[in-house]
């Protein structure tokens, strides 16, 4: 029961639409298999679980025994000279209560340990798996959806393990136990008490049929209104500039009004549920009192029995209610667990790598030998690509969006595998080289320079964890990043917030260039950024890149003119094929596609 307090602490979701979408897919497909799988996590703790189960049995039994003893004690009130029996009964009650509280405490204590450890293990498995999955897996999926699977689904499992298991088991025990003892004490009163079950069932059905529709409506209106609020806040500048305050207010009130009406009915009807439970409780209480009274008059039951029944009837509706609630959360947790397992079961990219060759040192010669690449089944993205980079060469890849430039880079680093043909590194087929060993010889400056939360220093060091502070600073100096870093509040120890917000796109690039300097790779892979970077930083980036490319085999997806002109070889791609190759000058002379491309760039002042 106390786990309910967790609820207010959970961060509410802003995007109600996301929740909507998730709810639709809540039903688990293969119930049994998922449960078995969850059990495999829990089985490590089977001794603790067994003890825990035992404690639940004890506490349920004690919660039955308590009222029963109270009833007997009250019956002794009417008999004279039972002082010793009375004392024993009180002692019995005390022991019952102690055992009950103790077993309750222990079962919770153990369950929390087991559930937190289990969730920890699941999280760790999931996280490890994420880093073993091939890039292709992530390209096919929406990041947001994946993130919600990882966070919400695991949270769901965690919450359910924490509270539901104990509640469900103890509810079942209490329910069975209560009915059994009641039947033993007085079959007639029991049947009268049980009458409330069908009443409760129909009442609940009537209410939920209405509330589910109303809640959906409310959720929709809430989503619309919240969306409007988000929009109007982020567009505030425009609202002010165009003096649209009144229109915004009107639109907003309209949406808020819709929410008010649907919210009103949803809340009214959902408010009926506890009232119904109260009614049934009161009802059975009254029936037991009246009928019990009549029976007592006939001597069929004792007063103590009536007392026991009134207590039991209260204990009896609660587990019923709990079971109904828990069943839904249990279902959604199992569905959540299923999605987590799906991810863990995805084919990972390292399993087949174990026996592959590891490279100590390389020269950096890269050759594409009739390489084709097909994404999925249908579309050929690269066809019959042949290219060659001698050690230290700079190879520029040029072409319109979708020509296959990025794919070539992804194939070299084995983010993707070729469909046919071979890529050779120092005359070795790269598919025979261990992926991690292959990548350890490569440095990357990718279009979106990603920064981790942490200090600037740690971010640069990411490419070479053993680097000293001095190494880091040297790399930053080479990357032209030193001067702006020194202007930051704590220089190299400045903490960067999530994905480096707070520093500019250009500065992020400088940091990622510093990273590449530190890595000292033989092969450099460079995807030039196109986003608008201010002119001064742009100059710095270009100078740093020039330095970085010296003495390294470089593959560059080039947008900047001077990188292209520097290149030893330019490959012009279109529609997945190399249509022209040569140096800048030879290609300009050819007056082909490359020349057209250059002219359309219009870079003249």
């Amino acid at each position, binding site marked *: 029961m106390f786990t309910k307090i967790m609820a207010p602490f959970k961060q509410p979701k802003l995007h109600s639409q996301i929740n909507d979408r998730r709810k639709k897919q809540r039903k688990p497909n293969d119930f049994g298999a998922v449960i078995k799988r969850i059990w495999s996590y829990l089985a490590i703790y089977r001794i603790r679980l067994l003890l825990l189960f035992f404690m639940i049995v004890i506490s349920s039994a004690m919660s039955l025994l308590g009222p029963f003893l109270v009833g007997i004690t009250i019956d002794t009130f009417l008999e004279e000279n039972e002082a010793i029996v009375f004392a024993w009964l009180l002692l019995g009650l005390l022991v019952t209560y102690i055992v009950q509280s103790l077993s309750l405490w222990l079962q919770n204590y153990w369950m929390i340990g087991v559930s937190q450890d289990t969730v920890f293990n699941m999280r760790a498995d999931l996280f490890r798996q994420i880093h073993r999955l091939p890039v292709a897996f992530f390209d096919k999926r929406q990041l947001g959806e994946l993130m919600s699977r990882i966070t919400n689904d695991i949270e769901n499992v965690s919450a359910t393990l924490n509270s539901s298991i104990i509640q469900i088991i103890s509810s079942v025990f209490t329910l069975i136990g209560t009915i059994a003892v009641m039947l033993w004490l007085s079959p007639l009163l029991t049947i009268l008490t049980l009458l409330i079950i069908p009443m409760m069932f129909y009442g609940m059905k009537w209410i939920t049929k209405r509330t589910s529709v109303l809640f959906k409506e409310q959720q929709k209106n809430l989503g619309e209104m919240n969306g409007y609020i988000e929009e109007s806040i982020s567009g505030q500048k425009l609202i002010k500039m165009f003096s649209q305050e009144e229109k915004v207010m009107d639109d907003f009130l309209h949406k808020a009004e819709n929410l008010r009406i649907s919210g009103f009915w949803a809340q009214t009807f959902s408010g009926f549920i506890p009232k119904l439970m109260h009614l049934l409780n009161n009802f059975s209480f009254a029936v037991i009192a009246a009928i019990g009274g009549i029976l007592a008059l006939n001597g069929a039951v004792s007063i103590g029995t009536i007392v026991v029944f009134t207590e039991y009837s209260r204990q009896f509706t609660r587990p019923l209610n709990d079971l109904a609630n828990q069943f839904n959360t249990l279902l959604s947790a199992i569905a959540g667990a299923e999605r987590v397992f799906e991810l863990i079961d995805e084919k990972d990219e390292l399993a087949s790598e174990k026996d592959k060759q590891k490279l100590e040192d390389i020269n950096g010669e890269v050759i594409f030998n009739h390489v084709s690449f097909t994404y999925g089944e249908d579309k050929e993205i690269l066809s019959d690509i042949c290219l060659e980079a001698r050690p230290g060469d700079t190879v520029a890849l040029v072409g319109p969006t979708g020509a296959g430039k990025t794919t070539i880079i992804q194939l070299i680093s084995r983010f993707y595998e070729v469909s046919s043909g071979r890529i050779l590194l120092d005359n070795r087929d790269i598919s025979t080289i261990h992926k991690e060993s292959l990548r350890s010889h490569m440095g990357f400056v990718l279009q979106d320079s990603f920064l981790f939360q942490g200090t600037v220093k740690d971010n640069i060091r*990411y490419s070479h964890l053993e680097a000293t502070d001095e190494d880091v600073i040297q790399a930053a100096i080479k990357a032209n990043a030193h001067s702006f870093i020194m202007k930051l509040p704590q220089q190299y120890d400045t903490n960067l917030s999530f994905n480096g917000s707070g520093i500019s796109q250009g500065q992020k690039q400088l940091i990622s260039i510093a990273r590449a300097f530190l890595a000292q790779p033989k092969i450099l892979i460079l995807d030039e950024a196109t986003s608008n970077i201010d002119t001064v930083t742009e100059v710095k980036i270009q100078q740093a890149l020039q330095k970085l490319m010296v003495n390294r085999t470089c593959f560059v997806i080039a947008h900047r003119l001077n990188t292209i002109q520097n290149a030893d070889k330019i490959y012009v791609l279109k529609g997945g094929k190399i249509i022209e190759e040569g140096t800048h000058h030879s290609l300009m002379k050819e007056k082909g596609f490359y020349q057209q491309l250059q002219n359309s760039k219009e870079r003249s002042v």
Partner: protein
Amino acid sequence: MTKILKFIKPYRIAAYIALILMLIELSVELLQPLLIGKIIDEGILNNDMSVVLYWGGMMLVLSLIAFFSGITNSYYAAYVGQNLGFSIRKKLMKKVQSFSFTNFNTFPHASLITRMTNDVTQVQNIVFMGLRIMLRAPLLIIGSLILAVLVNWQLALIFLITIPIVVVFLVVVMTKGGKMFRSVQQKLDTVNNVMQESLIGLRLIKAYNRRTHEVKKFTNVSNNLREQTASALRLMEAAMPALLFIMNVCIIFILWIGREQLQATNIEVGEVVSIINYATRMTTAFSMFSFIIMAFSRARASSERIVEVLEAKIDLEDEEDGKSLEQLKGAVTFEHVSFRYPGMSSYVLKDISFHVRPGETVAILGSTGAGKSSILQLIPRLYDPTEGAVYVDGMNLKDIKMDDLRKRIGFTPQESILFSGTVEENLAWGKSDASLSEMKAAAKDAQIHETITDLKDGYETKLGQKGINLSGGQKQRLSVARALIRKPNILILDDSTSALDLQTESKVLDAIDEYKCTLFIVTQKLSTAKRADKIMLIDDGKIIEEGTHDQLMNTSALYREIAYSQSEQGAMDRVY
């Protein structure tokens, strides 16, 4: 909290009705143990069937009364809750609409959105729950106590001792637990953050083979989360058995003392039964306490956050004798303007002075963070300068009615924001009574007309959340059209043509020339700057160079460097 509760005032009658109904319901529940005592003492022990039937029937009738009051209560409580939420939202939105940008800066966007959405819902729900169940638990305990004393004060004495202890115990545990759960939330955020970074930075992590490094990092934060969660939960879960035990010991005492008194024959069995019944009801009510305290403290935090917004001082308002502006020629003067964002210590603009004649084009160049956007924001008076003054047509901005001023200015921000709605609706933002032909003219000038007509529903195509997404360049052109439609006297383009290719951009600028407005344009491209009557080079909040393209080519080394890096010749020279 009390400030928020004032919003209930218009609905107080409904609130009172809800409260009264809840009290009726509660009294029925409180009467039951009393009645069962009566049935035992006067009915069973006196062998009087009619008493049993009478009170038994009475209990049934009372439960029905309780049920109907409960249902009606739900109706009134929902009415109060929803109306309260509605009025708070309305007030908030109104307030936020009157916010100046200084106000906006004091509240981060995400936080403002949370305040207007979740926090209001939170308060609304708590009021609804409060009128229905939450007040019930404490009232039930108080009521049980009173009735228990009335039934038999000697027996009830035990409650007077234990209940304060239980209350103090719960409050202590809850406060401690609350703190621990906040820390759990933080740990959870950290875990999720690492997860998210892993997903976004996936390629980088793979490229540098940092798998084990990341796993180690994750295991570390995840372990923190596990330990913190376990200890927080264990504390909370320990409270329940303890509470149960204290209340159960009460029952033992009641039985004991009850029997002693029974021997002295000044008490009847029914009374003991009633009091034990009250004790178990109190136990149930107590177990609701944790939930109530938590919900209440959350609602209090929410209402504090709402009140903060409602009470924010608005610093930018029209002067009482603000002049209305009939027309504007478009001269703009900055006189020793310095500016820092409110709450920040460093100046983003330092002693800026310049004068622009009507119809002139001014290009502003400079690196990120140099202060370009800040200069532009002062012209439509989104902020007031910290020092110095801004004039249009010789009038200080502070003396002009804000609405009048802004009506004459066309503005396209750096990030082109479109609202969900049709293309037409988005254009109408610029001029609410614009005719379709006016829209088309503006769209043509912004080179977006053809794109629009190619869309499925032309000008009636839906954009945004539920509609189609336009590309960056299309958005920029649409937002330029939105600014042009009002035929502004001053037009401000804050780097809002960056995604256009040179040809399209120059067509847009040619069209803008026809509007004969004063134009401020932030750009990174010299080809664009070249068109301007005046180029200002901004660095670190100061104008470092000023002049025409030709002048600057002669006088400014920095300008030449930029020009050089952007020219084909420059690139060539570096190669050889």
